[in-house]
């Protein structure tokens, strides 16, 4: 991509979707999703299983035809211009989709040919990827015999073999141990630094926190989007931690109080998420007072909100609670 093209892409954004919708029979898998993914960033799709992450990604790649809505990816109208898009994107499917009965080297060579890398350049490119992703002594190992972490690495190597401008990664780390996950994310940032736009879906909060921006999906709807800081910042003053010897009983009391959205037990502490209220500043005292009246011995303190809180608010709060950071 030359500089001028990069300029155009960054001003227009890599992906723009309006009113995106997909219906399978009676099931509404994706419902009126508006999306703007800026170029050169790692953009996250956060949502539980069945929230429409995969369906959305498939529509953005042109693999599924939207039931309604408009999509523009890298300046191309999708699905009409999907063929032109193919060579400019990399797609890593949720399920390992390379060939189990081909070796690492054979898989890379195959994808290189399919992606139209000239024969003369294939050897060098494949060697480069084998070195970068550490496949040195595994180059002749059959893909099917490798562990989840190595398979994901191979899938990523194959997805980027033609140096795509835009990468779609559908839950890339779902079958991977934490160590491999960390490495995988290092690789993603490396690719983003090199100028690629990355759209990655996940249901893991710690991964979502590492994205430049993210969209929270729930039951096919986009319920929140923004940078992680914007999303958590919007919940300031609404999260409390309560230390107590009798967490089960305190939890019962809390759940009967008005304004409490969720209570989650973490060891001997309770993490409490409050509904939006006008007197947000005095939430801490109000809860402390209520617990004292109920005869509980508990220590209440405010804590900064995290993405899990964002997720709970976005999915349980209803329409009035929709968090939309600019």
């Amino acid at each position, binding site marked *: 991509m030359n500089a001028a093209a990069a300029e155009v892409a960054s001003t227009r954004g890599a992906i723009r979707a309006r009113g995106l919708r997909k219906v399978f029979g009676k099931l509404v898998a994706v419902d009126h999703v508006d999306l703007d993914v800026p170029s050169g960033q790692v953009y996250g799709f956060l949502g539980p299983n069945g929230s429409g992450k995969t369906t959305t990604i498939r529509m953005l790649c042109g*693999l599924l035809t939207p039931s309604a809505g408009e999509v523009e990816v890298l300046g191309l109208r999708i699905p009409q211009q999907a063929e032109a898009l193919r060579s400019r994107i990399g797609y890593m499917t949720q399920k390992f989709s390379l060939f189990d*009965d081909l070796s690492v080297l*054979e898989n890379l060579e195959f994808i290189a040919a399919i992606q139209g890398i000239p024969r003369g350049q294939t050897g060098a490119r494949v060697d480069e990827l084998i070195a970068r992703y550490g496949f040195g002594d595994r180059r002749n190992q059959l893909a099917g015999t490798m562990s989840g972490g190595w398979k994901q690495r191979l899938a990523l190597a194959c997805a980027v073999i033609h140096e795509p401008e835009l990468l779609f990664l559908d839950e890339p780390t779902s079958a991977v141990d934490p160590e491999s996950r960390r490495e995988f994310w290092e690789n993603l940032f490396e690719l983003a630094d090199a100028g690629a736009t990355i759209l990655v879906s996940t249901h893991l909060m710690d991964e979502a926190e590492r994205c430049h921006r993210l969209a929270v999906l729930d039951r096919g709807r986009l319920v929140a989007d923004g940078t992680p800081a914007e999303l958590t910042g919007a919940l300031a003053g609404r999260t409390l931690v309560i230390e107590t010897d009798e967490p089960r009983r305190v939890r019962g009391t809390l759940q009967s109080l008005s304004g409490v959205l969720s209570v989650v037990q973490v060891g001997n502490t309770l993490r409490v998420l409050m509904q939006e209220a006008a007197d947000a500043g005095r939430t801490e005292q109000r809860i402390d007072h209520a617990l004292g009246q109920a005869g509980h011995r508990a220590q209440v303190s405010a804590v900064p909100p995290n993405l899990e809180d964002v997720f709970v608010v976005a999915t349980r709060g209803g329409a009035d609670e929709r968090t939309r950071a600019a």
Partner: protein
Amino acid sequence: MNWRRMWAIVVKELRQLRRDRMSLGMIIGIPLLQLVLFGYAINTDVRGIAAGIADEANTSASRALVMDMLATEVVAPVATADTPQQLMAMIRRGEISVGIVIPPDFERRRHDGRPVAQVLVDGSDTAVQAAAAQLARVPVDSATPDMRAPLRSTPPTGAISVVGFYNPERRSAVSIVPGLIGVILTMTMVLFTGIAIVRERERGNMELLIATPLTSTELMIGKVLPYIAIGLVQVSVILAVGLWLFQVPVRGGLLDVFVVAGLLIVANLALGLMISTRARSQFQAMQMTFFVFLPSILLSGFMFPFAGMPKVAQWLAEVLPLTHFVRLIRGVMLRGAGLREMWPEALALSIFIVLMMAAAILRFRKRLD
């Protein structure tokens, strides 16, 4: 059409096949198994039919006639009787299938030139009936509407001449092996490509492939090419073993044999691809393959004579590639015909190929919905 991408599919298929022991075994195993099965076990040459003999004349000439009949080995004597009635009873009871009757006035009949012997045949088995006809020359009198076979005259010389063209010994292997090439190719080739695309869809590979610039045509042709080579290997194996075990002749050009086989291979591969674009699972592809395989075996003329089938079955058979192949290969291998003489059959196969391939390419969508 990008040759590099298409070739990448070919190489990938061959590499995968090399590691798939089961399929690899099938390539050689199925032809050998079927060849031996059809060549040896399924034998339409009828030999040693149980026969009863009632020689009411019992002269040296009548005994010589009986010995001549037995010398054909078509019948094997298991019982003797005094009267034709006793033979009829034995046939009815299923103890014998053929009764040979020499009447008491054998010598006088021989002198007068009248029919000298009767062959009673159990008509309930057509194979037996056909075989027993070898015992006598085609009679002049018409069939009686009885379950018994008609009276047949045998000249006292006992010469039994059944003239067969191209397969004078009437060995079934000779007529079966050429058609068997087609049956084996139909069974293996349709299955190979039939599961080729469904399998990749089931394993998830297809979602990756359709998100790349690979086109339907490149994918389809790339999937067909390696199996053409494999099909030709199968043909060579069948020919070699057919020649070695059954002395099946190749009277026409060997090149013609391979060209004809090549046509059937591509036709079946294209049919398989078509199935693969329709089937939802490998199991369904398998079912659809057998749905095509069964009528192919039954209607193509491989097992039963084409002429004897009802009109509707004949029309249906004309659509099946195996029908045209059986005609072609018998022509080339047994009658020494050239491909040029049989061009309409070759054309029919070519049309089938073009239609199926086009249908498969058009049906395959680079979409998940």
